């Protein structure tokens, strides 16, 4: 049975010439798992919001949307509220009440169900989602992942026939995101609920999707099974292909679709394909050319040094940082990876002098950051980009915000304008200067925040999860931007969950566990030495080329060995 039928849907925001959605035709059958992808601003969210009347944006619209055979606009609000579930991007903003149990019942209260029914539904959902253990908690005590699961559970309690999710995992760390997507897939599989979602984490989503739709400039450019769509995108030479899972990209570059072998989608399939292709005998001659670490690094002076640092928040509390020692040399791109709550972000607050160790030393160019004056520390020395770039903005427009950074310096207004213009050009912000910082997309906010920090001319740049919530093309831009800064002699220290990003752009990687640095090494050697904590390209190819870490290096080796 078809759930949605969209016919020739066009939509433009008020006062805009350009159509956000252009002549869309789409039919979605019951029980399907549909993933919609596309660059930021391609109209994904706008399309999803058209699927529920209360969320539909204002603007000029033509065409028809039918839900269960009748026009959506004629579908009763009560039916829509319960049957069409909608999960939004930000886990925090969606939670309305202060207690988990109350939040679970929120939708049911709106529908006006009686106590007995609510009791049963809430109990059912809490059990299905494993919420029993935190049922009585305050919402504030939950992690981001738990909040998003709670939002999902609260919607599932209303027994929807279709579940619409708008980039639900963009604010979550990889482990929480996996758990969330697992749950969505379980809902689809075990309850037969139709799922329509937009998502960046294709590696996890594509294997469970029945159908993949690619939007570009408000139009559908590909629609079909994930493997077929990948093939189409590759044939088109479309930039979205760069967001496809690593096995697919390697396969496309090395095999040139010939139709005989199905394209691998998961690491497992990719590995099987690669090893079949290579024959086992070749493994022996796997190259293991040890790369001598460049001598230039050895000479560069140490700019950041942690010496046997210990930290705890309370007198009798547990140690958050235990015996942490590492050093960063001038001009390095240093990545810190590791799980949640292992002390990565705390390390950054030690670095900016917000926390003080109770034993050991933190030194920035030989000085202790916690006793330095703010002016000395943050001018021409340390630039810190917080995890949430939004928290840096304080003005009405991006331009004012950038100027604000220079308001306490003694430059003339001419010099100030020149500086702001230069940094805006560097971060590609020229077109965005007149906008409110909160109206920018995630990637744009990230760049604007970076520009703001760069105005203080830092020589050491500290980044906390800069790739959170960014799509593939923005990540690439950010990566190149950081490399450019590095080329100018800026030292970069980055905390990240994004292994692929660290492997591609990082120079040295350190692994954090249980409050200290377990190991650190040159990025390539680091990931080649890990078995689990490494890129999917490496997990796929590690039996043949253990040192091939990025997709590009695997492709290159495939070509060389053909």
């Amino acid at each position, binding site marked *: 049975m078809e759930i949605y039928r969209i016919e020739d849907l066009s939509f433009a925001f008020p006062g805009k010439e350009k159509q956000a959605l252009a002549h869309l035709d789409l039919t979605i059958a019951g029980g399907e798992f549909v993933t919609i992808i596309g660059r930021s601003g391609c109209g994904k969210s706008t399309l999803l919001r058209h699927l529920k009347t209360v969320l539909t944006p204002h603007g000029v619209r033509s065409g028809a949307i039918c839900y269960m055979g009748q026009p959506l606009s004629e579908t009763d609000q009560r039916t829509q*509220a319960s049957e069409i579930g909608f999960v939004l991007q930000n886990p925090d903003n969606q939670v*309305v009440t*202060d207690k988990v149990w109350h939040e679970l019942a929120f939708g049911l209260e709106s529908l*006006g169900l009686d106590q007995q029914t609510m009791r049963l539904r809430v109990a059912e959902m809490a059990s299905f989602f494993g919420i029993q253990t935190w049922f009585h908690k305050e919402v504030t005590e939950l992690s981001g992942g738990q909040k998003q699961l709670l939002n999902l559970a*609260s919607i599932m309690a209303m027994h929807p026939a279709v579940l619409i999710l708008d980039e639900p995992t963009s604010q979550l760390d990889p482990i929480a995101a996996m758990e969330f997507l697992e749950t969505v897939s379980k809902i689809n599989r075990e309850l037969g609920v139709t799922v329509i979602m937009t998502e960046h984490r294709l590696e996890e989503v594509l294997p469970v999707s029945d159908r993949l739709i690619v939007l570009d400039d408000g139009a559908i450019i590909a629609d079909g099974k994930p493997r077929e769509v990948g093939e189409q995108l590759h044939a088109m030479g479309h930039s979205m292909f760069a967001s496809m899972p690593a096995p697919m990209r390697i396969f496309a570059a090395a095999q040139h679709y010939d139709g005989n072998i199905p394209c691998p989608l998961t690491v497992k399939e990719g590995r099987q394909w690669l090893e079949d292709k290579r024959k086992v005998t070749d493994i022996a001659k796997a190259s293991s050319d040890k790369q001598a670490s460049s001598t230039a690094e050895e000479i560069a002076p140490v700019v950041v040094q942690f010496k046997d640092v210990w930290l705890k928040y309370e007198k009798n509390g547990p140690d958050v940082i235990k015996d942490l020692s590492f050093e960063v040399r001038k001009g390095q791109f240093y990545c810190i990876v590791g799980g949640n709550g292992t002390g990565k972000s705390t390390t950054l607050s030690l670095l900016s002098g917000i926390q003080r160790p109770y034993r050991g030393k933190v030194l920035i160019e030989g000085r202790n950051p916690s006793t330095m004056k703010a002016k000395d520390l943050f001018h021409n020395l340390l630039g810190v980009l917080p995890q*949430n770039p939004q*928290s840096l903005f304080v003005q009405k427009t991006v331009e004012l915000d950038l100027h604000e950074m220079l308001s*306490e310096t003694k430059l003339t207004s001419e010099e100030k304008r020149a500086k702001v213009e230069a940094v805006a050009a560097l971060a590609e912000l020229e077109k965005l200067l007149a906008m409110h910082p909160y109206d920018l997309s995630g990637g744009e906010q990230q760049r604007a925040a970076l520009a703001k920090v760069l105005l203080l001319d830092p020589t050491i740049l500290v980044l906390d999860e800069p790739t959170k919530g960014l799509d593939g093309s923005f990540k690439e831009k950010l990566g190149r931007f950081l490399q450019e800064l590095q080329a100018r002699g800026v030292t970069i220290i980055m905390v990240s969950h994004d292994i692929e990003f660290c492997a591609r752009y990082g120079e040295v990687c350190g692994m954090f566990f249980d409050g200290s640095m377990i190991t650190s090494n040159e990025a390539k050697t680091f990931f080649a030495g890990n078995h689990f904590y490494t890129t999917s390209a490496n997990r796929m190819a590690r039996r043949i080329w253990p040192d091939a870490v990025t997709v590009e290096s695997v492709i290159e080796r495939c070509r060389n060995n053909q």
Partner: protein
Amino acid sequence: MGRDSFSTYHPAVNFLYFAAVLGFSMFFMHPVLQGIALFSAAVYSVTLSGGKAVKFNVIYMLPALFILAAVNPLFNHAGMTILFYLKNGNPVTLESIVYGIAAAAMLVTVMIWFSCYNKVMTSDKFIHLFGKIVPALSLIFSMVLRFVPRFRHQIQAVSLAQRSIGRDVTQGNVVHRARHGLRILSIMATWAMENAIETADSMKARGYGLPGRTSFAIYRFDRRDRTVLVLMIVLIAIVLAGAGMGENTMRYFPSMRMKEQTLFSGVVYAAYSLLCMLPVIIQLVEELRWKYIVSRT
């Protein structure tokens, strides 16, 4: 102290109990009843919060009791039993001293009762009770309780981010600090509105605004709630009857006079003690029953 079993009763039972003991403590200025109330309040607060309550009662409440009792005779000169004269010629009377002690005891008792009330009547219990009278209110309460910690968290995040670019309220000279602080506050207002839009979407998406909204409660009024409620009503009725007969108050001025002690006054005292000690008794009974169950298995 781990758990208090009286807290697990229905909010209505909790609320009636506190309404009764607080009201009675405030209005009955009778030494026996006051003694009962002060003793029960102290015992219950210790059952609820253990050593912390002992500390609180001894360090703050006990001195408060003495000071308040000592201050009254300095300002209140009514009464006919004059003990001596102050330097300014005002008399200090026995009645004013006794009244001072009684008033101080009343104040301290009420304060201790309130500390217990705060422990037992959590916000969601209060919301549950009064949400029935004004349904929209319970949701608003709940949303406010959600919003306040979020706002505080965000203001911390912004302040921290600003500190790392040298623009927090703790940095710079006085003018700079004031400017930084104002800037942070103004952006917080924007932030709150910005996020409220998505919260509103999430509410609409879950059918908020449909007619006939109900409210979900995790509390159930069961048999043990009924038993305790009935018992409490009977006890309250006896105490009120005592009040009607003039058993529960005494005259302080111009001379102290108490109603004669009869069998009925004994009944009122017993009922009041039982009422005030009810949570402690419930706790003791449950503990004994638990020990018994454990010993049998």
